[in-house]
């Protein structure tokens, strides 16, 4: 465990994670330049960027439970970077939709977002990510106050819910739910653990006090 701790606290740990997190984008850009994204490169690009947004959301939300389960407090050092990468990939996901699917025609984009629930939900998730990304600096935490900052950043639970709904509705068109189920289970465990932790003790205490009375 101590070796894991020293690895996590190694000065190179953050730069390495940063480089790893940029790898999917690098591969996609190379795929575009080498015309290697298959017969429908626009669709491949948009979908892959969406997949990576979901993956970074899961990773970000996994930090706290993992810290709890493993006792590795040093994991917390990486949470902000992972969250910012989720927002980064979400922005690229939207931009690639706007450019390659809609030809950057803003009238069409606004109409499309308003008309299609799954795009509306995805856009909403992205918009909610922006204030979190914008207040990710230490100075912002100090300016907001820890309590208010934390409350604001709980929006990530809503964002995760919207993101999986966006994915579910997209796949619902062809009833192809296998991958949706994988991400939903992961998010379910990560969010469920928090819920049990938040309401569990109080709920069980209440049960306990009731049975003590009875």
């Amino acid at each position, binding site marked *: 465990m101590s070796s894991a701790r020293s690895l996590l606290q190694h000065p190179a740990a953050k730069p390495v994670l940063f480089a790893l997190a940029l790898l999917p984008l690098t591969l996609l850009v190379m795929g*575009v330049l080498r015309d290697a994204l*298959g*017969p*429908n490169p626009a669709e491949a690009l948009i979908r892959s960027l969406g997949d990576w947004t979901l993956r970074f959301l899961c990773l970000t939300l996994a930090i706290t439970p993992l810290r709890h389960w493993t006792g590795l407090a040093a994991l917390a050092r990486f949470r902000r970077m992972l969250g910012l990468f989720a927002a980064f990939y979400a922005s690229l996901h939207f931009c690639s939709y706007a450019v390659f699917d809609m030809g950057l025609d803003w009238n069409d984009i606004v109409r499309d977002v308003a*008309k*299609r629930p799954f795009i509306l939900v995805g856009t909403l998730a992205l918009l909610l990510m922006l204030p979190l990304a914008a207040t990710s600096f230490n100075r912002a935490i100090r300016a907001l106050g820890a309590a208010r900052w934390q409350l604001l950043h709980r929006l990530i639970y809503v964002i995760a819910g919207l993101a999986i709904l966006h994915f579910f509705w997209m796949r*619902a*068109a*062809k009833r192809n739910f296998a991958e949706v189920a994988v991400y939903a289970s992961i998010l379910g465990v990560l969010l469920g653990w928090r819920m049990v932790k938040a309401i569990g003790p109080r709920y069980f205490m209440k049960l306990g006090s009731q049975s003590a009375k009875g």
Partner: protein
Amino acid sequence: MLLPKDRGFIHRMPSEITPRAVFEQRRLLLAGLGTLAALGSRRALAQGADRSAPLSGARSTLPGAVTMDKATPLAEVTSYNNFYEFGTDKSDPARHAHTLKTRPWTVAIEGEVKKAGPIGIDELLKLGAMEERVYRLRCVEGWSMVIPWVGYSLAQLIRRVEPTSNAKFVQFVTLADRAQMPGLNSSVLQWPYVEAMRIDEAMHPLSMLAFGLYGQVLPNQNGAPVRLVVPWKYGFKSAKSIVKIRFVEQQPATSWSLAAPEEYGFYSNVNPSVDHPRWSQATERRIGAGDLFAKKRPTLMFNGYEAQVASMYAGMDLKKSF
């Protein structure tokens, strides 16, 4: 920056697609295989030869049957497919469909016809004169291709089996064999995949039974050995690897409208003004038409076959009968 690579060519005739030297060599090879087959394991070799076997047809003279749009390159026609029996990813069919056995193959004719019974694939291949038709194919997902098919009008088969006056609809049942089709383990759809049309739609000369594309026998992933091609309807109506054709009086169930009735109607005619709930049907992305920045093109009413087919739907509310 993003220049289209090698996509500026237009292929029309099979003879243009396969250089003479290559197809002559192929014929030699086939002849060689034929001799070998006679000597040894006949079936295995015949199958190998089938896969790239030429199947040409005379250019169709039917109005609307040969679009002037640039054809989608063969590589993309055969690697970007929706054929859920082989997996839900578009690259799955090309990877998994080699397990499909296309010989022996029979198509059962059932229901309201005078001449019911099985028809073998070899008989089916000789039933009508092979024509090459270059059709637009519009997928309900918002992409499209242009494919030079080889086959003949479905009407030729229908006339041969003599439907009775009770035959109001034609249903197409496709192969569902777990041993050959790994995708059947998924519960995305009920198997077998079924499609249907009204009999007048099925009798329309543009409705086609296809046995080949690009001057060769249908690759497995494109619905070998025999499939339907109905160019004015969304692609999923064009059932692949057909094993049964039933003539019935009542409108039969179709797979996608069973799975999601509010999203997929019985008719599923291409219609830019009736949006799918998930996406717009006003535009489409032409596969292989250029680079990443190529603009989507407007979708045409009845996929551009309005002049030929619109009269069949006169007086119908196409927003309701979508």
